[in-house]
């Protein structure tokens, strides 16, 4: 049991994320200014916001499943599938926009349903389940679509290119969905139950929460969000593209989520933090572009930042005043016997352990 440090309010993780974002913006602005440029110019800001919208969609969905102590590695493939379904259904016909978007999101939802059912019904570890469905989708995409397919009507391409002042439409949509995600988690029962399932499956169950249904809902929503990202891809490219899955959105979205302070093991986190994490990654990308840093350095730094961020969050978890102390003074608390073994994901792996 942790005991609160007396008198000190807990600094919210989300606040730390946004403080880091502001610091990053200040540093980037200073660095760019030193070279006689302007970091927060209109072009750069638009670039940054556009980058965040695509990853943002996926990461918001990923937040929901990770909160439930699950995980989705299939999002990149869902994005690709959604872009193809949308583009081939629309096939350049402006009258079929709604049909195409609906079909794309419907197919995405179906993938999420399968993920959720495999995880809760067949008790397959989320990592394996979504890796598996992802591979199945990959095989389908690679076999069925050799190159870009379908065409998106101009009207729909506006989703990719239209701007409201400085804010791209896609970013605005992403922010609206983020607000909806926030409402879901903060104001709806299913959102409450996601925290509960991720925090402690057994406690949730004993309190009457239908845990399986909650996890399935999270997976469906996560896939739908990936589907929205796929629609944006289609709108940007004007066509559906199978190769989107190789862009690494699956792992990037997980990175953005944990960077935003959501525990990889579930039960704690927020959409606001995730949006912060997404903005940090997008700012890094834009800053590197403007500073003409080697794009590969970006990968190195990103990998390092993710690990360091999670390590720092892990530190925060270990409260120095942990465990009920009867006698204080005379040296600190002894080290834990074991570095906390990351408990396996979802109830499914718990099942594995005893199998």
């Amino acid at each position, binding site marked *: 049991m942790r005991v609160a440090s007396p008198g000190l309010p807990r600094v919210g993780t989300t606040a730390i994320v946004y403080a880091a974002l502001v610091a990053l913006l200040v540093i980037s602005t200073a660095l760019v200014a030193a070279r006689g440029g302007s970091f927060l110019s209109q072009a750069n800001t638009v670039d940054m916001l556009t980058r965040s919208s695509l990853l943002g969609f996926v990461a918001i969905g990923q937040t929901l499943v990770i909160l439930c102590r699950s995980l989705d590695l299939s999002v990149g493939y869902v994005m690709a599938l959604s872009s193809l379904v949308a583009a081939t259904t629309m096939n350049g016909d402006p009258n079929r926009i709604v049909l195409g978007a609906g079909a794309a999101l419907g197919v995405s939802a179906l993938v999420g349903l399968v993920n959720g059912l495999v995880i809760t019904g067949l008790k397959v570890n989320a990592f394996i389940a979504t890796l598996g469905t992802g591979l199945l989708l990959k095989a389908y995409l690679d076999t069925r679509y050799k190159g870009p397919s379908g065409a998106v009507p101009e009207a729909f391409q506006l989703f990719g290119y239209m701007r409201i002042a400085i804010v791209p439409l896609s970013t605005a949509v992403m922010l609206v969905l983020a607000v909806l995600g926030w409402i879901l988690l903060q104001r709806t029962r299913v959102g409450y139950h996601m925290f509960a399932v991720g925090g402690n499956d057994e406690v949730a169950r004993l309190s009457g929460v239908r845990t399986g249904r909650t996890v399935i809902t999270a997976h469906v929503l996560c896939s739908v969000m990936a589907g929205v990202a796929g629609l944006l891809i289609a709108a940007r490219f004007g066509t559906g593209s199978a190769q989107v899955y190789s862009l690494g959105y699956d792992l990037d979205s997980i990175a953005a989520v944990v960077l935003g302070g959501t525990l990889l093991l579930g039960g704690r986190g927020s959409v606001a933090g995730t949006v912060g994490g997404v903005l940090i990654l997008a700012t890094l990308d834009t800053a590197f572009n403007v500073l003409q840093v080697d794009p590969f350095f970006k990968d190195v730094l990103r990998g390092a930042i993710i690990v360091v961020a999670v390590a720092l969050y892990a530190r925060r*978890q270990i409260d120095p005043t942990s465990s009920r102390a009867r006698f204080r003074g005379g040296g600190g608390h002894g080290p834990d016997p074991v570095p906390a*073994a990351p408990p396996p994901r979802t109830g499914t792996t718990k099942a594995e352990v005893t199998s």
Partner: protein
Amino acid sequence: MKGNPLRSVLSGGTATAAALLVLIFAVVFVINPSFAEPSSMLAFVKKAAPLVILAAGQYFVIASGEFDLSVGSLVGAQVVIAAKLLDGEDSRTVPVLFLMLVFGLLVGVVNGLVTTLLRVPSFITTLGMMLVLYGAIRLWTGGAPTGALTEAFRQPGRGGIDAGAIGLVPWSLFVMLAVGALAVLLMRSPFGRTLLAVGDNPVAASFSGIRVALVRTGAFVLSSLLATVAAILIGGYAGVTAQVGTGLEFVAITAVVLGGVALGGGKGFVSAAMGGAIVLEALFTLFNQLGLPSTARPAVQGVIIIAAVALAAPQLSGTRRPPRRGTATAAPVPTPEPVG
């Protein structure tokens, strides 16, 4: 696990892997009798050896209760490092091989220490390592691999001993057998048993005097070293490209799971994990023989891992499901009902 033959067949073990292998090859031979010739079989072994070695490495990490997602990009990094450092100079072969092993060791130590001492989940640690390696190597080479591998370097991966009638016996067969034998011996040693103990129950392991962090770090080091060995064979077999190694971590995890090793740790045999790798390669071969497009391969992989894990999961029993609210047989009691 009783009573269901399908379950017992698919839930793994060395014997299961062997049985599956025989079955697959029987089908392959029927489709293409020439595949039964020693030269074809040896060519198959040459192709399968790197994955078998990777699976052994991944086994150690999974058995200790962790994941290693960095092996794919480590293989890629090692091949590119070798090409750049060798630059076609035969005399550099041995020093470069040595350097690669040192680099592999370093990667494993970092993975292990970050996971155990900094308490970062290994999924994130090795994901970060994957990104770092991917970027760092391209940063170093300016995007595309440069230099060239030497003939001597490529020998283990594509050369062999000419054995007359049966053709070329590949070096990779010997490397694979040596790695396999060492892995099995290691698992029978005190280290192997402590590794499984750590994967099974880290708390009990710690109460038994096991240094859990050290053992887990050792598993990561083994994984990285074996990925280095696999990289040497892959570089020799396929040469150097920018894509080399991509996705291998998931293929290796699939192989290990197919070998009946439990994710989460503590259960399974290294021999079965390596057998799983051979079965997986055999399946890919079967697909070629059936004329299925290579793009369909991932589908097999996807179905296999889900099925293997689903069938290894215990039956749904023991936990009583909560009844729906309000079905209590007790006297009705006013409970605060949600308004609205």
